[in-house]
């Protein structure tokens, strides 16, 4: 612990946890390229937002890089063939999600040639307009590669609309076990910096700050060297601490700004992108290459050859594991992403998607959860929470089914980072509680909206009926009045006639 950390520790400002990182030796082995497997399955929903819409037919021949599904709606990203071959199916396959539920995918049988479409290489990408850069990024289907998978072009355009002064590049990679960003920064620093500079143009931000955890000295050195010539790209080592890579925490660390609870990063003038995304942006803008593969980490106690692999999108995890030599024992837990926020997968016949930063084959030891005990109010969770929440109080409320009380305690601010559950000596699955409560509140909110809508409709109907009734009555009254008036007139006329005659 350095002096500053000790100081922060005494002030109680050392949020977060320091999990054993398990990054080496996997991070020190150069990235290996995975050969194209015989069949690839590209999920239509690989990103936040609307799934893409297939524009190919089964049996059609495609080339590598060819558009096979188009973006739909404002927040979406297109999908491209990650190798050449034949579309063999458009149907359901197990989605990379803990539920094990299926999702739609386009399957390609590889022809083994890996033949590209024509790509448009741009010699002077820095002369492009901000709009053109965003357009090329959008066309290449680039999404946030840090795991959040938000379509990148949407965020780039947002930058121009809401006055961004700082572009924050997340190279912290704080999740244990993962080292794909580390490896990418060591091996392709120059391309990443080019990508960052293009993103600067596109967002209109004046400077880019790259935050890299100080447990990656090689990556820091490589990035420093690549960025040395550019005044507006600065590398900042940040303390290795989970969840340093979380947007709000990284923004505080690098700019001292705090994003208001109900606002977005852009509202305080910053935008956060992942360094892997910068690489994909460079590939898309300079080389015209769509996002077809990604570097990801294979790690965990029973992975035969831990390391970083460049994997074509749509590769089944079973193919990846088989190629890397299989497993050295029983896989107790199969996790996509890091151990702190990753998803459990039901089995290995699940394809790699754009946001797959890692696959962990955890052994029984690593996966072991402890027996759940009563909360002893030790406060460890309070000290660990990077958001300043009271996990023990929230979970106590949720256990009693007092969801609104939990919401009052700030449930919505929970970023599900898992620090609280990580330190809990009673092994209480706190994050599970919070997911449950958020789901419950969401469902209730929806129900409320529905009831309100129904109520409104019923009210409107009642009003209409009332109005019709009223109109009927009024009409009847009017008719009566008219009749009466007519009768009176007739009577008057009669009387007049009689008067005349009299």
């Amino acid at each position, binding site marked *: 612990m350095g002096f500053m950390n000790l100081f922060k520790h005494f002030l109680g400002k050392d949020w977060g946890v320091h999990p054993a990182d398990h990054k080496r030796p996997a991070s020190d082995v150069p990235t290996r390229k995975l050969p194209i497997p015989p069949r690839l399955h590209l999920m239509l929903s690989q990103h936040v937002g609307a799934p893409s819409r297939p524009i190919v037919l089964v049996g059609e021949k495609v080339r590598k890089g060819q558009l096979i599904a188009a973006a739909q709606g404002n927040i979406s990203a297109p999908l491209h063939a990650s190798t050449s071959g034949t579309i063999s199916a458009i149907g359901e396959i197990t989605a990379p999600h803990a539920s094990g539920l299926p999702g739609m995918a386009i399957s390609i049988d590889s022809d083994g040639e890996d033949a590209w479409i024509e790509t448009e290489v741009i010699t002077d990408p820095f002369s492009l307009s901000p709009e053109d850069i965003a357009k090329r990024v959008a066309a290449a289907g680039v999404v946030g590669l840090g795991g959040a998978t938000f379509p990148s072009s949407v965020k780039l355009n947002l930058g121009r609309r809401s*006055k961004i002064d700082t572009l924050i590049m997340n190279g912290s990679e704080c999740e244990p076990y993962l080292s794909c960003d580390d490896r990418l920064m060591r091996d392709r620093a120059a391309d990443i910096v080019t990508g960052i500079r293009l993103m600067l143009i596109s967002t209109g931000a004046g400077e880019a700050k790259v935050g890299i955890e100080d447990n990656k000295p090689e990556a820091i050195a490589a990035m420093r060297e690549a960025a040395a010539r550019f005044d507006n790209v600065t590398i900042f080592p940040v303390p290795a601490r989970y969840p340093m890579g979380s947007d709000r925490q990284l923004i505080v660390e690098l700019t001292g700004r705090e994003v208001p*609870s109900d606002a977005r990063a852009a509202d305080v*003038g910053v935008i956060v992108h992942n360094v892997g995304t910068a690489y994909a942006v460079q590939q898309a803008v300079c080389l015209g290459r769509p996002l077809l593969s990604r570097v990801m980490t294979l790690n965990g106690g029973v992975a035969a050859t831990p390391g970083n692999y460049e994997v074509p999108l749509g590769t089944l995890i079973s193919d990846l594991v088989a190629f890397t030599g299989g497993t050295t024992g029983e896989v107790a837990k199969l996790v996509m992403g890091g151990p702190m926020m990753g998803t459990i997968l039901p089995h290995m016949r699940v394809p790699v998607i754009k946001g797959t930063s890692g696959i962990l084959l955890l052994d029984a030891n690593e996966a072991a959860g402890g027996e759940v005990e009563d909360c*002893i*109010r030790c406060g460890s969770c309070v000290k660990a929470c990077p958001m300043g929440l009271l996990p023990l109080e929230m979970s106590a409320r949720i256990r009693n089914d007092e969801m609104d009380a939990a919401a009052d305690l700030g449930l919505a601010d929970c970023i*599900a980072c898992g620090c609280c559950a*990580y*330190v809990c*000596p009673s092994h209480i699955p706190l994050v599970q509680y919070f997911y449950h409560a958020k789901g419950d509140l969401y469902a209730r909110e929806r129900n409320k909206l529905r009831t309100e809508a129904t109520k409104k409709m019923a009210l409107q109907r009642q009003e209409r009926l009332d109005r019709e009734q009223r109109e009927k009555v009024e009409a009847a009254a009017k008719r009566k009045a008219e009749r009466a008036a007519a009768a009176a007139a007739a009577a008057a006329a009669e009387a007049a006639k009689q008067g005349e005659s009299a």
Partner: protein
Amino acid sequence: MSTSSLTAPPIASPHAHGGNSVTLTMFRVQLALLPATLFGFWLFGWPSVFLFLLTVLSCLGFEALSLKLMGRQRFKGTLFDGSAMLTGWLLAMTLPPWAPWWVAVLGGFIAIVIGKQVFGGVGQNVFNPAMVARVALLISFPVPLTQWVFPLPLTSLAAPDFIDGLRIFLTSLPLPDAMASASLLGFSKTEMSRGIDLLHSLAGAQAPALSWLGTRAGSFGESASLLILGGGLYLLARGVITWHTPLAVLAGLAIPAAIGHAVDPGHYLSVSAHLLSGAAMLGAFFIATDYVTSPNTGAGQIVFGLGVGLLTWVIRTWGAYPEGMAFAVLLMNAMTPVIDRFVKPRILGRDRKGKPLSIPEKKGA
């Protein structure tokens, strides 16, 4: 959404754990208490060994009984998570070392059944169980609970052997006058009430200097103040406790003591006499830090600790009892929910009141 997602085996992240457990934590606390306990055994001989064993055993016994009666499903795990044992251990450390057997059994009953299980078991109790028992015993049986003995190290000739120790423990014979003594705090209190000021009364054998070595009369865990402090530092280093509570307790006791002593040394005990006597060290590091009954934020713990320290000094100085720590802890335990209500961490992106921060005005926008 149904509640099944709460009871199903956890599949949500994280898929890693820091490795801490309740048992490990309790084990560390007990390890930290061990040196002081062994020193106490040596100092006060066999009767203190029996007292310690029976207090711990009766706490475990009453815990087992309560868990059985309430039909708790997780029986063994809860019984042996170390919390009941720790309660018994701490209680033993605050008792006169030659207290008779029934004090141990009754103490165990009060601590576990009344102090803890009535509230719903581990994590639910409002008051520190060991302190509840200590105070209840003191109020109900003031005589055996204030019978202190001169330290008679096991190696000395006068020390009772195993059989004699057992006899003292089981028959609750009145202590021979030669062995009975007052603790420093009790002694100073009685002397003051006789109109003798501290400068005179403390000049002889009761000199506070003896406190540093611990060879003086007092409760079983009191003499070893420095060993307790060492254990406390170990807990700090291991991260079992944080500095907030102990530092605040010691400051809360030391600051008024220093002022008082500076103003009138004849009426107010010195800082070192306060810090090294009674359950000051034990209270600061092991009792006020009790997870369940103290606030769970650092700032809250400082408020809590200052309160414990200050109340201890007030009770010792003006109260009817020479001891103050147990009362002070219980009083502040009652304040814990209030402190927790008002001293909360600030949520990132919100102000202290919980309102979202306002979006900053943008330059040039």
